[in-house]
């Protein structure tokens, strides 16, 4: 087990370092940081609205950048290794194929985690910057200062951040799964993006399937069932919108969605390992 972990870690470290050296991720990060900084310039509204705009834009920027990193990173993982034939050098060592898959995933997740941490830190700094700006503008009345600080230092933002990270880790899991099936990077990107988009409709399809009874044609039912069974429900993560709206979201609900994400990733990696085990390289 320890040996296995050592090998997984080696693959993960290698994947992480390889990804860090790629300019595309640095460009994405700079793009995200500029957007995050620019999010501070909504000044014509009340402070609650300014914070709402800032948080929405901040989360959307981090989410979009994370999605692109996940997609591009995963696309580079296995198909590119096969194309370059570097995978043969890796697998001729005492390294099991499932260890390779898990290592690749963990490397990608590490890259994503580092980028999320950097973007999160900048986002936090922008929130504090906005706080200082607004306190200067609105005056130092205790009630107003307290209300502004409640917006900028809202501890629920951590909940939203954890949910966003979990959603992106599931997207990475999907991308790794498709990369064990695919021969081209375009296929991995297209399929993952497609599932990501359909995932936001999954709950609608599921409810329609379960409640449509015999009224819907069989092929429609089959399609709805396939979406409900095979696609993750990304609407579960819309708790983020609730948090940004300033509504209370219980930690229990957040933790349950996090557990769902962990379980989903585990299943995806297990299936990916099965597929990769017998794949011709």
């Amino acid at each position: 087990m320890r040996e296995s972990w050592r090998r997984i870690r080696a693959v993960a470290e290698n994947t992480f370092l390889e990804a860090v050296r790629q300019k595309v991720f640095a460009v994405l990060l700079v793009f995200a940081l500029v957007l995050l900084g620019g999010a501070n310039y909504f000044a014509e509204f009340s402070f609650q609205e300014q914070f709402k705009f800032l948080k929405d834009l901040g989360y959307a920027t981090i989410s979009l950048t994370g999605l692109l990193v996940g997609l591009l990173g995963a696309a580079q993982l296995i198909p590119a290794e096969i194309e370059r034939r570097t995978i043969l050098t890796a697998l001729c060592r005492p390294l099991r194929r499932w260890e390779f898959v898990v290592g690749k995933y963990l490397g990608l997740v590490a890259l994503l985690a580092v980028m999320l941490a950097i973007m999160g830190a900048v986002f936090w700094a922008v929130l504090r910057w906005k706080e200082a700006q607004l306190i200067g503008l609105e005056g130092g009345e205790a009630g107003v200062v307290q209300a502004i600080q409640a917006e900028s230092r809202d501890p629920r933002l951590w909940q939203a951040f954890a949910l966003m990270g979990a959603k992106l880790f599931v997207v990475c899991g999907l991308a790794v799964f498709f990369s064990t099936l695919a021969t081209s990077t375009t296929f991995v990107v297209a399929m993952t993006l497609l599932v990501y988009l359909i995932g936001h409709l999954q709950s609608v399809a599921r409810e329609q399937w379960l409640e449509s009874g015999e009224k819907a044609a069989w092929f429609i039912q089959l399609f709805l069932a396939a979406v409900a069974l095979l696609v993750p429900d990304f609407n579960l993560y819309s708790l983020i919108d609730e948090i940004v709206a300033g509504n209370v979201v219980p930690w229990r609900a957040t933790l349950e969605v996090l557990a769902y994400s962990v379980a989903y990733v585990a299943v995806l990696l297990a299936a990916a390992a099965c597929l990769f085990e017998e794949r011709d390289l």
Partner: protein
Amino acid sequence: MSRVVALALAGGLILGWGIGKLPWEIRMTKEQRLATVGFPGPTAVAVREKLGQGLVLAALGGFRGLAANALMLQAHGAWEEKQWVRVRSALELATLLQPRVALFWDLASWHLAWNAAVAAERYEGLESETRRRIEARKWVEAGRELLERGTRAVPEKALLFQRLGDLYWQRLSDYQAAAVCYRAALTKGDVPPYLERFVGYALDKAGDKKAALAYFQELRRTMGENPDPARQPEVVEREMQRLTKELRTSPNGKRP
């Protein structure tokens, strides 16, 4: 392990998990809806009825907030140009995209019931004052209708009930309805302390001085012996004295 077995195993895993996750997803969705919207989940009929809206909401996925903000900015731009129909359509869409954001309902109703209505009242293109008033009333009604929907979408917050009360008071002069809204706001946890006096003010303004006095007396009683200064007991006592005095001169308690 052959290729077929590997494929079957992977497929079985995904499908098995798909079947297993279904009840979990259904329960989580219901619980999330119960916690955030106040009902456990739509029926089949409701799903069909709301499918169009649901698809829009779902399709935008993680970027729904961004789209709603863009619409709010669009509404702001249209407001600066006094294009009220554009303001209304952008606001309606923004509240549709993020119905749980109380701020959107608040801003939207303010634009319609105050800004658009006042602009209609002052519109020089219509010579007849009656016509202008009818136009203005339409905008006020649009704002009221938005706020009514807002209170149903975010029932746990005091803000929209307070704003609805303000609208009834300031734009429709319906003080009894305003008192009802302020009372509803008081049942929420995040009500500002000054609002508890507004029920009494609204009842007084509606001409029901007896009810206003009874309300202020009850309010003072609930404050206890050592009231929180933020609740301003002296203001309540002053109102009680004023109303008592006025009721002495007009004992039926109704405004002449």
